[in-house]
């Protein structure tokens, strides 16, 4: 410990020396602005674009494109929304309030938790404002970042309007004034979607804005290819004998793996979409993502979130229990009633599987309450026995 501490201390003390050396070096190399010495010339600050997410409709590419960028001190990155999904760009650092664990940083580091309790209403949760709104405030959307603190774009789409901001957020620009490596992630897709910004001195080689765009597009193309192949492979249901001569059917809500563990692109679909069963059969839905299986006899579906003013005057984004809580009013499906698996995500008490038996012949449409607008719907056709 003490040796490392000492070495680090030596290094920190050295920072000044190094910076000084750096300045001398740059001066020698030609800070003058003359184009003659291309190697060490200070560059004009530039702006590069990083795309946030990708895919349309039921294809959801969960990455930043490109995932890693290397820029000069003084350059600006503009992140631009590139899909229908609600993403954030959130740079790692200390934050107020409760946290959840974070896969991409050292063990023990956290990111703002997804949900918070609602005072006085047991069982009801609200979205953590840190996950939803720009942090520390709307002014961050076009600001300078020096490292060390948590800053976040807020959700680009799919959220109530940010208080104090009279426009939708589709862009987030940060100018980096300090060399270093900065990890960031999407708070809506913690555990899946992350990126890196490496900020280097003006004499180091960095790609041009055009290079970065090409790299991002290549990564989008690679993931899109994976998606297409996945769709082709997943359109088969599986059945097994069940009790009393009936059949048990298995359907996936969303995909899990693209290939081994590649979680950076997901299909917002039921796989297969349409299943035909016989009266008496049972369907088992499996899921590892934030999906639901919802049969709703009276559309439109309940909203996912309700904007409410709490008794203490704060505004809360309530997770609508009607959309999120499991509902099974009878053991066998009844087309006149609402049936809802609730959140099938992995960490949920009811997560990853849900079961429903069918007796009434007919064609019954259902949807995922989270991704219905993206087109995540399916049908169960029940034939008479």
């Amino acid at each position, binding site marked *: 410990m003490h040796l490392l501490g000492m070495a680090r201390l030596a290094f920190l003390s050295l920072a000044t020396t190094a910076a000084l050396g750096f300045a001398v*070096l740059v001066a020698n190399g030609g800070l003058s602005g003359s184009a003659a010495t291309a190697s060490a010339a200070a560059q004009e600050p530039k702006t590069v674009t990083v795309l946030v997410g990708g895919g349309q409709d039921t294809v959801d590419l969960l990455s930043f494109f490109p995932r890693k960028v290397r820029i000069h001190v003084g350059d600006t990155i503009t992140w631009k929304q590139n899909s229908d999904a609600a993403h954030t760009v959130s740079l790692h650092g200390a934050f107020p309030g409760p946290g959840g664990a974070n896969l991409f940083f050292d063990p023990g580091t956290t990111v703002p938790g997804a949900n918070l309790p609602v005072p006085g209403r047991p069982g009801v949760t609200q979205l953590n404002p840190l996950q939803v709104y720009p942090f520390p405030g709307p002014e961050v959307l076009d600001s300078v970042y020096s490292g060390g603190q948590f800053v976040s774009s807020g959700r680009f789409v799919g959220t109530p309007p940010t208080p104090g901001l009279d426009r939708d957020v589709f862009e987030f620009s940060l100018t980096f004034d300090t060399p270093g490596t900065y990890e960031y992630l999407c708070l809506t897709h913690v555990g899946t979607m992350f990126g890196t910004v490496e900020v280097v001195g003006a004499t180091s080689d960095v790609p041009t804005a055009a290079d970065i765009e090409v790299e991002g597009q290549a990564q989008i193309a690679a993931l899109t290819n994976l998606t297409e192949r996945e769709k082709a492979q997943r359109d088969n249901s599986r059945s097994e004998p069940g009790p009393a001569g009936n059949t048990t059917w298995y359907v996936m809500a969303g995909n899990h793996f693209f290939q081994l563990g590649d979680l950076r692109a997901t299909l917002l679909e039921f796989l297969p979409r349409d299943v035909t069963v016989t009266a008496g059969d049972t369907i088992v839905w499996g899921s590892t993502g934030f999906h639901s299986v919802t049969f709703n006899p009276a559309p439109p579906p309940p909203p996912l979130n309700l904007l409410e003013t709490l008794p203490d005057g704060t505004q809360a984004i309530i997770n609508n229990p009607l959309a999120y809580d499991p509902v099974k009013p009878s053991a066998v499906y009844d087309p006149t009633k609402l049936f809802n698996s609730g959140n099938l995500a992995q960490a949920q008490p009811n997560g990853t599987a849900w079961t429903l038996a069918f007796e009434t012949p007919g064609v019954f449409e259902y949807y995922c309450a989270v991704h219905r607008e993206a087109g995540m719907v399916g049908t169960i056709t029940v034939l008479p026995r």
Partner: protein
Amino acid sequence: MHLLGMARLAFLSLGTTAALGLAVLAANGGLGSSATTASAQAQEPRDLIVLAGAGQDTVMVTAFFPQSIRIRAGDTLTWRNESDQDHVVGFAQGSTPPGPTTSNVQGAPGERIPSANVPVPGRPGITMSNPARGFPNVESGATYSGNTFVSSGRLQKDLDWAGVPVPDSFSLTFDTPGTYPYLCLVHPENMSGTVEVVAPSAADVPSQAEIDAVAQAEMGLLLARVEPGRAAQSASAQNEPGPNNSQFWYVRAGNSEQGAVEARVQLMEFLPRDVTITAGDTVIWRALSLHTATFVPSPPSPAFFLPEAQPEGPPWMVRNNLIVERAKPAGVFNPAQYFNSGPLNPPGATSTAWGLTFDTPGTFEYICGVHQELGMKGTITVLPR
């Protein structure tokens, strides 16, 4: 954090200047007792230990300890597996692994690692563990310079396969400064580490004692999550009404904490382990990783791997189709027959869930065919209706 990063970066960009600065500072400040150690000369190469995984019996921690390590060019790292599970140290950056591959979720898009399983030549429908993953492609003690594929092969204590002893450690010497990400090829989704190699003359590297201290701290954080995770998910089985006054019972095969640091702590257990139901009820197993629910009417239980020695090269680790393939000989459980879910949630799974209905009263023990040797088993007690 970023200040240190800056110092490091300054060092990397500056090379000689910083090293010189450090030498001056060290000489002035007295980093060592002798003046010679303070000069910018190569230090003695060192042998350092990193732990691959942790946990005994049904607890598996998928992480390297420490997760990141900084060493000098010329140093040798030895990964040692002291846990009860198998791990493989793999370097994939900038390389093309031999044979069939899959995408590396922790690498850059497009980066590949060996796929988990490959067909057994000449035996349709039979697969084996990919030898490119399970067996070393370079000798332990080799030198790594970046941009080549390296597999340590399976590291596990107290094991041999078809007479071939399985090592529990693997060493590489690093001769080229740079940053080298690596991962466990058996747990490519959530087990990774980084080796940062700095100049042979660098003073800013931790000692083995410091490395151990970081490793123990990281391990402590993860192991502290075992008991809360177990308690949260094993308290009681979830149940829901099913047809004909029966119940659906949900059991987890393995824990479900995911998408975060917790994903590095896995319980090879059925949660809850023991479930009591009534004749006519159905149990739904759900899993987020490679597990089975397997009822064996008469011992011994089939092994997951059937090793076959080969005249040349490593033995074939043939995957036993009794474990790999689903077996549901009847719609209702029959204690005299073999029932098997097959791997729940393997790559390409069409479901993360499996259902089985019970009519015969009694207590029935079952196992996970993949993790039976670790003690992953459970019971279903069926009461008369």
